[in-house]
């Protein structure tokens, strides 16, 4: 059970990395327009 003392921080750090990636994606405009892209391919 002692393993949890280093596994939990590792899990949180990994989670934190993904959260940071999400923030970066959002800043880059990944979620700016959720409606048009699925339809855009039909307009070609």
């Amino acid at each position, binding site marked *: 059970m002692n393993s949890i003392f280093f596994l939990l921080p590792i899990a949180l750090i990994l989670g934190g990395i993904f959260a940071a990636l999400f923030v970066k994606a959002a800043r880059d405009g990944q979620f*700016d327009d959720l409606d048009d892209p699925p339809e855009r391919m039909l307009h070609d």
Partner: protein
Amino acid sequence: MAAAIIRDAGLERYYEYREEYAPRPGPLRPGWDAVPVTVCDDGCAEVRLVLDGLRCASCVWLTEHILQATPGVEEATVSYATGRASLRWDPETVDLGTLAGKVAALGYRPRLLGEESKPDQGLVIRLGVATFAALNIMMMSAALYLGWVSAMEERYAALFRWASLLLATPVALWCAEPFFSGAIQGLRNRVLHMDLPIALAVAVLYVHGLVSTLVGADTYFDSLSMLVALLLAGRMLEGRGRRRAAEAAVSLAAALPPTARRRVGDSVEVVPAEDLVQGDLIDVGAGEEFAADGVVADGEATVRLALITGEAEPVVIAVGDEAVSGTVLVDGALTVRVERVGEETTIQRMAADLRAAADRPVRLSMADRIAPWFTAVTLVAATLTATGWLLAGESGTALRSCVAVLVVACPCALALSKPLAAAAGLGAAARRGLMFRSADGLLDLVDVDTVGLDKTGTVTEGDLMVVGADDSTLRIAAGLERFSMHPIARAIVGEAVERGIPLPRAEGVRETIGRGIAGRVDGADWELLAGGPGEVVLRNREGEAGRIRLGDAVRSDSSEAVAQLAARGLDVVLLTGDHKDVAGRIAAEAGVTNVWADVDPAGKASWVRARQESGGQVLFAGDGLNDGPALAAADVGVAMGTGAASSVLVADGVISTRSLKPLVSGFQAASACQRAIRWNQRRSIAYNIVAVSAAAVGLVNPLVAAILMPASSAMVVWGSSRIEASMNGGRA
């Protein structure tokens, strides 16, 4: 910087008026000098912009006053409902770049109509971070709650609590910031905002958790992060609706050609349309639009007035007739003596009326109206709880119960009630072809008792179509008309193609304006001539060989839609600028009994107002620029998406298919949506009463709160999801 501008302009009062912090200044859009502006007779320049980031009425007040206080600005008005600003300034004194810079420095992002707007990225990031934290905290909380059952060593429990604190800190201090700033702005304005009880709950939860972690007691961090994530999700849904509303802005200037061919003696010169003055003679050819209003001085031509009157059938005009700006000359050629130019033209005056009508006021949501009561009741309940337990001599329970009351009273479910139901209702209507700009438009449908329908393009197809012809006549006619751009020609060729008739070759085709077409097909000479209203006659040497009847056909499903509207107890009325007999025939086909014929655009609007004055709630559906005044006057205006862009500008909703059936679905969605909102609000208020009572008597601990609070939100989500189900079941 913004503060300096505000102070310099002597507008410190903004700080009392504003309800929310202004967003940070965004980067300035380069190239304001290149923006096309309208220059008026008195030398003033005019432009209309969209301002992003306006969040409250005081933002509007501030922006207007800052602009009006700028030297050189003649007029500045900002509309909160649409986020649009109209500016009028003296270009000698100040330029648009400076004005845009002032607005941008206040933190609002000015942009041109039609330019892309960006959603609030900050909200998305806050929601993502809060969700991430909530899910992780929940897993650790689950371990802690299970620890109550089979004893957990204190060092593990402490680890989970500290890790939860670590995750909950950014949620409480950063993700929940919109609620704190909303509550603070509300307090400054002495308004108890819905954000206040939310902010209160978040603050109490966090401080309580912080202290509990230090002393090794149970925390409410799971409820806290879940709450913030759910509320942010609700806020994002609401924001999406409002942003779409501002997008439908369309400039009517596009309907006017930028240049005109002006007669100079026996020659012509190309001049910018704004240089035309009264008395000029301009030449207009096939396919061109009239740059100004005038009277035909020479020539004969067919023109399509659809933009102004909404009627598809082209009319022939000759010397002495009026030519209206923005209408299209189909064939022939004219010389027109200019009578009215620029702002004075029919189309520009109609456009100005529409723009004025598009700026509508906003309404307070019910959640905001009950917020003050809610906050007051919560605070009183918390105080009573604490006092009661203290009088009973149990100070430990007093603190715990007081915290529990503040926590479970968080109006999460109540705050989510409307946005969730509205999003579901709008989605249900949109999937069936009726898109609304805002939930208010949809909900207004519930009270509507009168439906006014425009004829052309709304009940009917709006295009000239062949309504009666035999195949052999159609074949010859289509061969003759194959290369003509005349609307009648396109209707005939289109019908022939539809019926699968191979088009024959025609030779020596000659077209006579306003008369007909002649040529050789299959070795014989043919003539296709106008023959009475809505009819063309095909002739050969022996005489008449066949007739083709043309007209505007009623949409195949119009009568069904009208019957369904009538079955809902609505008074359906057909309004048209057309003659009585045509209107009567269309009405009979569509199943409408109440017909108003020979109604001009202003007449449609005054019909709407007359109905409203006699206590009615009116929905008007139409498609042309001519329907604009009626659409704007109606309680709910619905434009046909296939119609003029300008009618979409003033309408509350848009039908995206060529059918009236979406209107029926809209009524169903509206009543389902209203039922869901009422259901949600009743359930969440009932939940709060039960939960607060339980908390007051000391029955609520962190585990109970962690189950109760998401459950109340889930209840609201479920209530909203029933909208789609009830529409599919046809119960609505």
